[in-house]
């Protein structure tokens, strides 16, 4: 049966270049390290480093959360409450691993010491899909609810949840990050906008992005306060400077259909991926020189993509994943050799 199946697939869907990326060569060297997660078909995603150096991920399709010891390679997977279908994992200041129950309207956490899971249901039945979550310095959890068109705030001390619905339907709040002043920013996957949230009042301030057709999966905030975002809808990389109000965009190397998705800024360098391409490229952008470099992300012996969220470790490596093939990966960026 296997031969019949693979024969059919290879005959009808042989290697093609329909969505081939434009890879950009350059001087930066990187190395990949990957871990294949135990449960098959789980669609691993969103790896993040905990304070103890362990790496957590979620298997959205496998309804699980996992912990990896990167030194030993040991992995342990924890089944989550029914139909949670976790969209992301984030670590709180106490080391608890929080997940968003994207299909059962919940946010919860797992205490690694006890293995016990605590779940908070959304207080509003319209709040159906907690999505991406991040903690501020006070330990407050902020999260988006894409299709519910809301953002939320959860106080882990008492479980209190506050929700705010955006005034414009279909904005689709997606990625979320906290700025240096402690205010959350989130991106719109439904229309051309970013939002700043007043952490004290949850009042929203919209930043309209310049190009119609813009949709933004994710954003990150650089040390200088600039907001870097992926213009997923138009295949561009963008920057908004809250201090000056300036917004600037650059076409991504693989063009309008490249669908940039995940993004992280490390030491002033912007990293993102072009998820519309096959292979899925990891792209590096240097804001000082406004130059790109990119690499095809391997997935074992094949290329099957894609990255949906990426974050950095404390020592500046990138944590990425390839959800199609149950892999979480670490990218080490090698310093350039000193000029002779």
């Amino acid at each position, binding site marked *: 049966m296997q031969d019949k199946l693979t024969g059919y697939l290879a005959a009808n869907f042989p290697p093609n270049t329909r969505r081939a990326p434009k890879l950009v060569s350059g001087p930066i060297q990187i190395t990949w390290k990957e871990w294949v997660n135990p449960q098959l078909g789980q669609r691993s995603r969103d790896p993040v480093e905990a304070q103890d150096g362990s790496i957590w991920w979620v298997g959205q399709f496998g309804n699980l959360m996992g912990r990896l010891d990167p030194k030993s390679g040991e992995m342990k997977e924890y089944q989550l409450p029914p139909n949670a279908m976790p969209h992301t994992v984030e670590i709180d200041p106490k080391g608890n691993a929080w997940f968003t129950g994207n299909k059962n309207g919940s946010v919860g956490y797992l205490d690694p010491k006890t293995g016990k899971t605590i779940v908070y249901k959304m207080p509003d039945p319209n709040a159906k899909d907690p999505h991406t979550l991040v903690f501020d310095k006070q330990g407050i959890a902020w999260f988006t609810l894409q299709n519910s068109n809301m953002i939320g705030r959860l106080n882990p001390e008492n479980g209190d949840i506050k929700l705010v619905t955006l005034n414009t339907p279909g904005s689709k709040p997606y990625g979320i990050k906290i700025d240096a002043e402690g205010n959350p920013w989130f991106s719109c996957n439904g229309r051309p906008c970013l939002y700043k949230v007043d952490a004290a009042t949850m009042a929203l301030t919209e930043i309209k992005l310049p190009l119609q057709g813009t949709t933004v999966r994710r954003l990150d905030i650089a040390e200088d306060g600039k907001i870097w975002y992926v213009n997923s809808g138009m295949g561009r990389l963008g920057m908004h400077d809250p201090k000056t109000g300036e917004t600037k965009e650059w076409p991504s190397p693989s063009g309008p259909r490249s669908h940039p998705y995940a993004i992280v800024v490390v030491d002033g360098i912007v990293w993102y991926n072009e998820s519309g391409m096959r292979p899925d490229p990891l792209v590096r952008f240097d804001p000082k020189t406004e130059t790109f470099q990119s690499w095809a992300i391997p997935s074992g012996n*094949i290329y099957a993509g894609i990255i949906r969220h990426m974050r950095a470790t404390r020592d500046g490596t990138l944590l990425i994943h390839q959800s199609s093939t149950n892999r979480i990966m670490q990218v080490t960026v090698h310093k350039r050799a000193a000029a002779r």
Partner: protein
Amino acid sequence: MRNRSAAWVAAAALVSIAPFAAYAQGQPGALPEGEAKPLVEGLCVSCHRTNLITASLGYTRDGWKELIGTMIDRPPTPTCRTS
């Protein structure tokens, strides 16, 4: 959650019972006709859409084998790797 360890067995059963109303019907990315089309519909499309196949990078036989191996256990002796 579907137990993918038994997916091959389930797919074989589905294929042998009848041409079933595929989950894939009406989805973008139609599968071409072929002897193994019902197998793809039973095995692959029970978990994900056809467009993940039709819009893929495309692979050799060994490549498809490796990719499928990240999703389900393969015969001849499927073993449970799900928790």
